[in-house]
Structures are given as C-alpha cells and as structure tokens.
C-alpha cells in the first residue's frame, strides 16, 4: 500500500497512508470487538498477517473513507496531533469509551533524506507491519477488561488538529469530550520512523 520508491524507503505520503490504513483497521476492529454493530455486518479480511473484520455497512464505510482521506492529508502536512474514536450511548449521548490515536512526527532517515531531497524513512515495511499486528492483537484483547456496553451505541471520530489547520467543507469544530471516572490503558505503539502512532483507550470505570 505504501508508496515505495526503492526498497526500504517510505515517503511522508506513504507513512501517512500506513497510518490511515492502520486507523481504518483499528477503528473497524474496535467497532466489531466491542459489539457496537451486529457481527453479521462485518466481513473478514486478511491484513498484517491476521484476520481482521471490516464493516460492510455503506454508511460506516463512507464515513471512514471521508475521514481517513482527509486525515491522510493532514498527517502529510503535520496538522494532526491526535484522533479520538469516541463511543457514545445513543440515548443519553454520554461518552462511554474513548480510543486516542496519538500521532507524533519523527525525522526518519536523515542521511537518506538528504540524498533524496525529501524526508524519507528507511524502516523495513515488514517490521512496521509486525508492530501494527501487535497493536491489533492488543485491541482484540481489550474486551477482557473493558466494561460491557449494554446499550445502543454510536461512534464518532474527533480530530485534534493544529491551530493553523483549515476547516474543510463538511467539517466543524467540536467540543472536547470527557469521560467521568476514566481509566486509561496505553497499548503498544508503532512507528514508521516518520510518524509514531500511540494508541490509548480510556473507559468509564464502573464499580
């Protein structure tokens, strides 16, 4: 998927694509694993060497495609710091769970970048996929400690952008969300050596 000019060379654009592909699978995984939507609306797909499930719902697909194409642009231009997937109770609009995907920007391979006149990374794609797979497996394992979502739920994605970021059409400013009595769990992170992605889940702690 990533744009590889030569072997072991990832451009900024390619790195953003890797991140967005990860986001697509991670968000779908969360939707499936947390039982937000009926399991029969998901289709299995092989990715990162494991089987992951993607929603077949056209509206969810549309939403994620639009979100991620825009996010990719932002990541290339280093405008985004964080994406938050929030899970809401449909009836009360209460935020029950929040998945933070923190994006950090790194320098990549400085020597190679000079040579190519472009910021690139020389990290092995296989290694990156291995790291992403580890995160995916952790996401799947989270249901063992996350509380049960016993209500009709919906989800939304909030983008934490830099202040100089323009608001494109169909986008609006949102209010920050907060979870009462939140508990945070940091999952593994992966890096393309141009971008580093941290995944944190915070959930409402019920006694």
């Amino acid at each position: 998927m990533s744009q590889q000019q030569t072997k072991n060379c990832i451009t900024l654009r390619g790195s953003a694509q890797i991140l967005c592909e990860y986001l697509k699978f991670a968000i779908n995984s969360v939707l499936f694993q947390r039982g937000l939507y009926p399991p029969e609306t998901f289709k299995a797909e092989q990715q990162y060497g494991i089987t992951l499930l993607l929603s077949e719902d056209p509206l969810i697909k549309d939403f994620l495609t639009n979100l991620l194409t825009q996010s990719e642009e932002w990541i290339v231009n280093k405008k985004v710091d964080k994406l938050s997937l929030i899970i809401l109770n449909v009836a009360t609009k209460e935020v029950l769970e929040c998945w933070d995907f923190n994006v950090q920007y790194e320098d990549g391979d400085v020597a190679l970048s000079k040579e190519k006149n472009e910021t690139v990374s020389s990290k092995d794609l296989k290694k990156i996929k291995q790291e992403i797979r580890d995160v995916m497996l952790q996401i799947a394992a989270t249901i063992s400690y996350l509380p049960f979502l016993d209500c009709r739920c919906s989800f939304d994605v909030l983008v934490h952008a830099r202040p100089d970021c323009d608001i494109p059409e169909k986008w609006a400013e949102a209010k920050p969300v907060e979870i009462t009595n939140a508990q945070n769990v940091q999952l593994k992170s992966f890096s393309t050596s141009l971008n580093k992605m941290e995944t944190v889940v915070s959930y409402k702690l019920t006694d």
Partner: protein
Amino acid sequence: MAQFNYLNELNSLATIDGPITRGPLQRWVKKSGAENMNPTLSTSKNISNANLSGINQSMHKLSVSANQSCNNSVLSANKTPTRADIRKNKKTPSKNKSPGRSTTPTPNKASKTPNKADRFIPSRSNTNYDLCHYMLTREEEKSDEPTLATEALSKALGETDQGRLLQYTCKAPAAPEGYQNRLRVVYSQAKVPSTVKNTSRYIPHSPDRILDAPDIVDDFYLNILDWSASNILAVALGNAVYLWNAGTGQIEELMCLEGNDPVCSVQWVQGSGSHLAVGLSSGVVELWDCEKIKRLRVMDGHSARVGSLAWNLYVVSSGSRDGNIVHHDVRQRDHNVATINAHTQEICNLKWSPDGKYLASGGNDNELNIWPLAQGHHYTQTQYLYSFRSHLAAVKGLAWCPWSNGILASGGGTADRTIRIWNVNTGANLSTVDTKSQVCSILWSSHYKELISGHGYANNQLVIWKYPSMARVADLTGHVARVLHLCLSPDGTSVLSAGADETLRLWKVFMLDPAKKKDPVDTKAAKSLLNMNSLIR
C-alpha cells in the same frame, strides 16, 4: 516541686499507651533523636537529588524544606548544653577521616559508653554535613531553571489549549434499533441466579447411574437419544446405534454404518412398538425393527443430514439441514406425503403435540414454527399456523406439555438462553425465563408440574423449573461438558442426560412420594388408556 515530680511520674505510669515523654532523661533522648534524625533525612534527600538530575519542582520544595529542617537542627544543636557543643567541636576536625583511624565513633558505640548508657549519640562525622549543605545549596541555585518535566508539562498544556478539535459532520449511523450487544452472553454467563426454591420433595442431586457413551457426537443439532415405552433406550454413538435395555441392562448393537458419517437422529414409534426411525447424514430415514434387528425401509427425501425426527402414529416427520420437513407415511409405498420448506437453515428439533394436532419445529434461523394438522388436509398443509421469532439463537429445546393442551416450551441457544412457554391455541408467549446458559433440551415431567432443561457453558447443569411460576427448583451438576440431549424414562421417574463428556447420566429426579403414589399412578393408567384409544383410531 517534688510533689509535682511525683504526680508527673504517676501520670506517666497511668498513661500506658501514650508516648513516653515525661521524666527528666526523656528530653535528652528526644534531643539526641532529633539531632540524629534530621541530618540523615536530609542526607538521603541529597543523595537522591544528586542521583536524579531531572527532578520536578516538588522535589525542590522538599529539598528546601529538608534544608530548613537541617538548619533547625543546627540551631537546636547550638542550643544543646555545652557538653554536646564540646562533642560537636571535637568531631568537626574528624570530617576528613583518615583510614588509619581505628576508633570511628558509631552511634552504637557512643551509646555503649558506660556513663551515658541510656543515651543515643549520633555520629556527626558520618552524616557529612558539609556535603549535605553543598548539595542543598547547589540545588537551590539551579531551581530557577525549568526542568524537563515542567517543560513537557507546559508544552502539553499549551498544545491542548491552542489545538483545534474537528469533527466530520456526516456522522456514522448508530447501531440498528433493537440491536442487542451479543457480548452480553460473555459478560453475564457466570451470574447464575442463586434463588433455588425449596420444595417439599427430595430431589437427589447426584446421578443414579453413569453410563459410558464413547464417541458421542458433540453436535447441538442432532437428536440421538430416545427411550421407548417398552423401556429400551436407543442411542447413536458415532456411526452406530445401540439399544440398552433399561430393565435388564443388556446392550445390543442395532446397526453400524460404513464410513465415518455419524447417525444423526433416532426416534421410537409411539406406544410400545419396536420400530425405530433412524436419520442419517446422507439424508435418508431408515426404519428398523428392533426385535428382529432388521431394516424395514429406507426413505429418502432430503438433500442433507436428517437431524430430527418425530412420529405421529404412522407418519414420521423428518427435519433436515436443508431446512425442509418431510412427512413420511411408513405404510405406503409412496412414503413421501408432503415436503414443507419450513426453515431457511438447519432444523434443530421437531415435536408432535401429544394430541397429534400440531407439529413444532425449531430452526437454526432462530424461528419456532407451529404446523397445524387440519382435519382432511392430511399433512399437505404447507403454511405454518404461527412463526415465533422471539428467540435470538437456534431453537433446539422443544417440548409439549403432557397435561395441558397446546402448551409448548422452547429453549434457545447460546446467544438467547431463554426458555419460553407458548400457548399455541392463542399464539401467546406465556412466560420467558433467562437461564443464563445455552438451552440444549427441555422435558416436562409427567408426575410433577415441572420442567427440566439441559444446559451448556458455564455449569453444564440440568435445571428443574416449577411450572407455571418458572422458579428454579434444583440445579443438577455433574456433567463436565454440555448436556446435549435429555429423555424421560417410560415410567416418568428418571431423566437420562447425554453429555458431550461422553457419559449418559441417569437422574431419578421425578421419583414419586410413596405417600402420594397412588394418585399419580391412577392418572397415568388413565393416560395410557387414552394413548391406546388414540392408537386404535
């Protein structure tokens, strides 16, 4: 003052649990303790300060306060009587200890000197006052510069203040209306309602007998256990059917298929006949005479395995994985009376009502259909009377109430876990009870107003329910894998359960109370007479 001393002593003796603060020597002890405590405390702080270069401000405050306390102790040291001062002056030059010095005063040694036996004297040379003081003051100088931690904190705070929070305005849809998170099963499985209603009768909680059932197929969709009115139990284990005479304990092998395909269902003819219908993986239904151990007929009609069978006089209805029900008239050459496209998925169970008017079919498509046998239509009716769609999983447990006309109990699989009682005369769902576990099979007792159900994960138990209150009467545990099938003995006193743990367990749970024995036997006799009448018709 002497009288006060005496009073003080009395007081100090009287307060046993209080701190020992009184008495003339206590002041010295306290002072020497204070002298010792503070420097060592500050030293440890200094060491930690020296080791950790990047420390936050709170640590600075601590070190400052430690410094102050150190100063205090110095002050208090100044206040000590001349003896202590002398001691201090003596020890100051010893700061640069030479290795050759043999008598380094340690607190212990000092306390051991005979004239001050009850005093604790710290070693001033070991506490390195100069170093402590230097470290403390040095940190104070540095404290004006922001540390790494505070920098990071201010950066993080600044960023969240400045950043923009954006959202895409075309939202993703919420979960469909009425959708229930299926993980509920995972989260609530272990919570079994503990209220077990007391009953007046004794229910043995362990099986009466345990029979081995090697190679039993652990398949929820099969029906491989049936107990005939002539007290012979037919059970299919793998590709063979065995007959166990419950009276004599004899075991006979009725048939054994070639190949590895399992036998999928067995069902005895009504009454005390010796005919057994056997459903096979190939989709055929075989009819066997069990007295002569002879196959009488082979009836086709299905394209997939026959997992359920039900007799209604001379008609055997078979349900298959292809979702069809076929009524076979065993008397006619052309046995296939009717084929009904009943379910979209595998049929899990079929049961004719005791009066032969309704056929209930439960499917893997979560539906429970009731098929009427209208007078004159002769099994050709292919439209269901009711289709109950309340179950959220495969409907395998099915049983008609033996004493009340048109009452049906049905149980759902893992995602559903409920037992529902239906009245097919009105189409009403009379009651629903969440069993917290997969319902694999249900039976009604013929002696008591009770039901028994077999369950899977987590406890693999049998549960006896009171009807119509649906209160739990007893939990029978023993199986180590799910209870696949249940059948009632012909005398109605025992229940045989087949578990996936390759055992058959016999539970004598419906034994009659000797005092009340007479009455139920009479009704039973009357019932069998009724059965006879229906057979004669």
